[in-house]
């Protein structure tokens, strides 16, 4: 795996210097979880809750729903921790559940909410990025840009939203994403390719049509 499981995480994890130490520590924590050791559960929760929440929030664009998703994901993981094979990556298992639950919520929501991409494109047409500067006006402009980026992201089909959230926002590698979404590496890269094109087209208000970005592999919207 290319990226570390979690860079923010808890202090004990930060204290570990090498990837091997992180792996060894994680295996030990999981073994303790499998014996019902409460502090070990807490360690895993502290280590992964932030990124789990971020992944779900970036897919759903809804903080309350994202919280529900993360809670439910941890409950499912902890209830089934005794079945977990410690030779595998814990975090891909957890984020897989987070993504699946988020997609379930998206499916429920998609029946009531549909944002036409071309209309949205007009709405978010922007006047350039506002990265530099640290004044209040810049901060407001930056927040506004972020809000509009989220609007565009929210309007994309679920499968594109998922890969953009995992790859471009959270920085998972293609290999990790293929484990998380249970797809071949080539499929993941294809989705990333399409998702970036679509995002750029909508962001620039190019009058993107969703049909142009769906193919046989993407027959199902999600």
């Amino acid at each position, binding site marked *: 795996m290319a990226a570390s499981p979690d860079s*923010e995480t808890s202090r004990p994890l930060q204290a570990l210097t090498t990837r091997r130490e992180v792996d060894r520590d994680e295996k030990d924590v999981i073994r303790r979880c499998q*014996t*019902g*050791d*409460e*502090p070990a*559960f*807490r360690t895993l*929760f502290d280590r992964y*809750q*932030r990124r789990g*929440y*971020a992944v779900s*929030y*970036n897919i759903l664009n809804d*903080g309350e729903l*994202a*919280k529900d998703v*993360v*809670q439910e994901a*941890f*409950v499912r993981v*902890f*209830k089934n921790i005794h079945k977990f094979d410690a030779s595998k990556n814990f975090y891909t298992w957890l984020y897989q559940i987070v993504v699946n639950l988020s997609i379930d919520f998206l499916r429920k929501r998609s029946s009531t909410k549909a944002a036409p991409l071309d209309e949205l494109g007009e709405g978010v047409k922007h006047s350039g*990025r506002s*990265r530099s500067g640290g004044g209040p006006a810049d901060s407001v402009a*930056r927040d506004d*840009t*972020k809000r509009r*980026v*989220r609007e565009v*992201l929210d309007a994309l089909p679920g499968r594109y939203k998922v890969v*953009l959230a995992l*790859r*471009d*926002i*959270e*920085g998972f590698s*293609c290999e990790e994403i293929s484990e998380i979404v249970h797809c071949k590496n080539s499929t993941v*890269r294809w989705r*990333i*390719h*399409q998702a*970036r*094109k679509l*995002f*750029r087209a909508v*962001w*620039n208000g190019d009058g993107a049509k969703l049909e142009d970005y769906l193919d046989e592999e993407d027959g199902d919207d999600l």
Partner: protein
Amino acid sequence: MTCDAARGLLPLFAGGDLTEGRLEEVRGHLTSCADCARELERFGEARALLEELRDDAVLPKREVRRMWTTVRGEIPLLRVPRRLRLLATLRYAAIALVGLSVGFSATTLSARLLAPTADPAAPVALTPTQVPIQPTDIPGGAERPDRGMVQPATEQPGAAPVVRNPSGVITVTKLPVYEKSNAQLQAELNALRQKNTEMEQRLQQLERALKAKSE
């Protein structure tokens, strides 16, 4: 490589997701094609917009704690480690000691409040004399055998009442509170206070031990 072919790969190139072979091909094309280089820049900008959302979604600590409480409540059969079990035992022991200490103090205080106000200057015999007293020496002694205590025949107002316990040793400690003189109560109160102080010291020791363990 043609511009069409290169542009088809730019979305992946922008994120460093191309395989090594194609990467070199696209890189070579970009050095000689300004239009494709501009196109790449636009993909780069779009990707940077998404990157700015990283670290944007963070829950406040309060919410994280609440989430953990909910999650924890759903996990069955959690095992508390031995170290924490020991701490819990010490905590209960400390609470029990505090309870005993408070109860003891309350009893002492109520006894003091209920005591009759006799002449404080009256002489009182507080120490057991170790001298056995014959029942015949004490009028009415036979009438109260069940209580094991009698009033001396020569009792003077304010004098210490004497009691003969089953072993025949005279003591004053088994009298009801209202039959004791102030001086007697004062002496017992002092003894209890001393005992209370000892218990409080022991309690503090336990609390310190508990704190040291939990740190």
